[in-house]
């Protein structure tokens, strides 16, 4: 419950404050979002598996976001930024899909 509340607060705060992001950070935002979504769905699945842990979630969330952004940053510097972004999105997407599938099985017992 408190988690959903936090999500809503975050969305609302972003809409209200409309923070300015430096142009240099802009390319990494979408990747960071996908990485954060991956961590969050993993956390939800762990919660339903009854093995959720606060600390593990926060650590995986932060490391996911930072590493995804770093990989894309490195790719930009090496001239393969878009290819690396695609690779990161593909891997994270597969993880999200398989986590969501597990969550679905939990909820519907199917």
């Amino acid at each position, binding site marked *: 419950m408190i988690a*959903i509340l936090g999500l809503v607060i975050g969305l609302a*705060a972003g809409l209200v404050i409309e923070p300015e992001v430096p142009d240099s950070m802009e390319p990494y935002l979408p990747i960071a979002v996908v990485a954060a979504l991956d961590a969050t769905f993993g956390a939800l699945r762990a919660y339903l598996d009854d093995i959720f*842990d606060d600390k593990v979630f*926060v650590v995986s969330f932060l490391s996911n976001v930072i590493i995804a952004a770093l990989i894309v940053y490195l790719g930009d510097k090496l001239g393969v930024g878009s290819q690396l972004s695609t690779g990161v999105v593909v891997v994270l997407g597969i993880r999200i899909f398989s986590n969501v599938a597990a969550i679905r099985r939990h909820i519907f017992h199917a």
Partner: protein
Amino acid sequence: MIARPPFGRRPADRHTPSSWDLLEQVSATSLDEDYGKVAARRGDRGVGPRRRPQVFAAVALVALGLLITITALQTRSAGPVDAQERSTLVRQIHDREADISRIASRSDQLESEVEGLQGTAEQIGSRGEELLDSLDDARLMSGAVAVEGPGVRIVADNESGGSTSSGGTILDLDLQVLVNGLWQAGAEAVSINGNRLGSLSAIRTAGRAITVNYNSLTPPYVVTAIGDPDTLEATFADTPGGQAWFDLETNYGIQFEMDTVDELTLPAVPEERLEAQYAKRQGELP
């Protein structure tokens, strides 16, 4: 949730990840292993899953919400910029097209102008040629240039032996009459002893000699005239000048010899005898 090994693989391969397909590995490890490890550790210690308020998780989710909205806003605000750039480019294209059509019409205008000027230039050119031709003629006839052509050569001398007797000496008047007769007979250029006669040339006596163009002449006087070689000699004989000289020849012993020559060259009149100081052209050039 352990992924099934691909068909046809032996079960022994299951624990050697290198033989798994990459995608299957990704799906198989989609849940962070740490959750399982931490839970196992808790189970070992006999502690159940934590059920206290998940403050850190909430903070992380706030961060997620922020990230999502920021990204969405960024993407949305980038849209108008793109549209603006596109409309700017479209406007620039239209501007350039207008420039092109303006330049093209200007080019057409200049082209027709050039055609007009070319016509004028041709007119001026032909007029120039005309003027050059008439200048050529004028220089020829005024004696400004040396001329050549067929004509007659007259050699006249005083009575041989006695220059003291008044009768047998050629006077300036005699030469004037001679030249006048030649003009009358159709001569186009006349020179006496190499002194071409121009429009300002006078034949006169200065001291004891006859001068033409301020040059003193000494007998014999050689008068060359360019004109029709077939008629000049005969026509001259019919003129008063010709008759006067016939008279001089027969009555005063003056030597006079006239021959038709095919090729004569007459020099130009000296420049100082061609300059007009007071006479000015009246009206336009022809």
